[in-house]
């Protein structure tokens, strides 16, 4: 006889991703690698900011996993600067997930402690959902995108451990409303540090590098 029956499940669909992310984090942490998940919209200044942070942390061995495809500063440029970089072919995906990072780590030669920057795919929605083994999430937000970003993409701001407001040199041209922006950020995330920077000139990155140094140790 055939009979229908209801089964309670209540299982989080992110569980497997999060499990792999924790394993990545644990294994890299043991090897002295501090992992930073860099999130932000396309063109926000993720790659430019990585380059500035690398310059500000000369004592650190730097590794980069490049998942972004929209950049005009690519893996070649990072490699030219002597940074150990691998490019992930993300085939039009909209975020990085833990299994993707697990695979790409097999290609990365890690021979000393340091910092691993993972540049996520340019998107403010789903990268915030997926843990990829990071110690911290860094949100790159540019003044050029406008001051309403926290209100439009609240999850990214809620989950960020640190925020860089890039392209501050463009504030005056785009009528950036500091008060409105910060009010939104504070409603979502009471304690997150917000650094104002210019990734073209490097202004503001000394403070960012110092913050990272303290955070890492």
């Amino acid at each position, binding site marked *: 006889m055939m009979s*229908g029956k*209801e089964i309670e499940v*209540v299982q989080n*669909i992110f569980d497997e991703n999060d499990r792999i992310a924790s394993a990545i984090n644990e294994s890299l942490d043991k090897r002295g690698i501090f992992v930073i998940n860099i999130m932000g919209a396309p063109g926000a200044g993720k790659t430019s900011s990585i380059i500035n942070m690398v310059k500000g942390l000369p004592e650190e061995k730097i590794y980069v996993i490049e998942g972004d495809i929209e950049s005009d500063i690519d893996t070649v440029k990072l490699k030219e600067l002597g940074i150990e970089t691998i490019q992930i072919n993300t085939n039009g995906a909209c975020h990085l997930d833990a299994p993707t990072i697990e695979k790409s780590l097999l290609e990365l030669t890690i021979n000393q402690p340091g910092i691993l920057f993972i540049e996520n795919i340019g998107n403010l929605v789903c990268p915030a959902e997926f843990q990829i083994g990071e110690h911290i999430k860094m949100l790159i937000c540019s003044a050029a995108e406008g001051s309403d970003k926290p*209100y439009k993409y*609240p999850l990214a701001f809620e989950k960020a451990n640190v925020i860089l407001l890039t392209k501050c040199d463009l504030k005056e041209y785009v009528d950036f409303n500091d008060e409105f922006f910060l009010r939104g950020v504070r409603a979502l995330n009471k304690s997150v540090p917000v650094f104002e920077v210019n990734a073209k000139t490097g202004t503001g990155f000394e403070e960012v590098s110092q913050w990272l140094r303290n955070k890492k140790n």
Partner: protein
Amino acid sequence: MHEYPITEQIVKIASEKAKENNARRVTRITLVVGEYSGFIGESIQMYFDIISKGTLCEGAVLEMENVKAKWRCPSCGIDYIRKPLSFACPQCGQDGEPTTIGKEFYVKNLEVET
């Protein structure tokens, strides 16, 4: 695009549960999908039809319970759905705090044939 691996997870979770319960097939899967989980129902359904082929979940109906995100006012203690470009409490105007309501993304239950 990103719904593909996620849908694989859904089929995996449902198939494992069905097996544990000695079910012959899954006829319905109910998901709870929060507004900020960033998942699009139609794409999950589309991938589901492909991925579930040949599994215990083939032919099952996917049901989705959507949950709107809510903010909580620390002064009034109420939960509310915010207005666009604002986090302000509708009662007192103070900015509320984010809650877990609207971030759900889980398989709630299944209906199976045994």
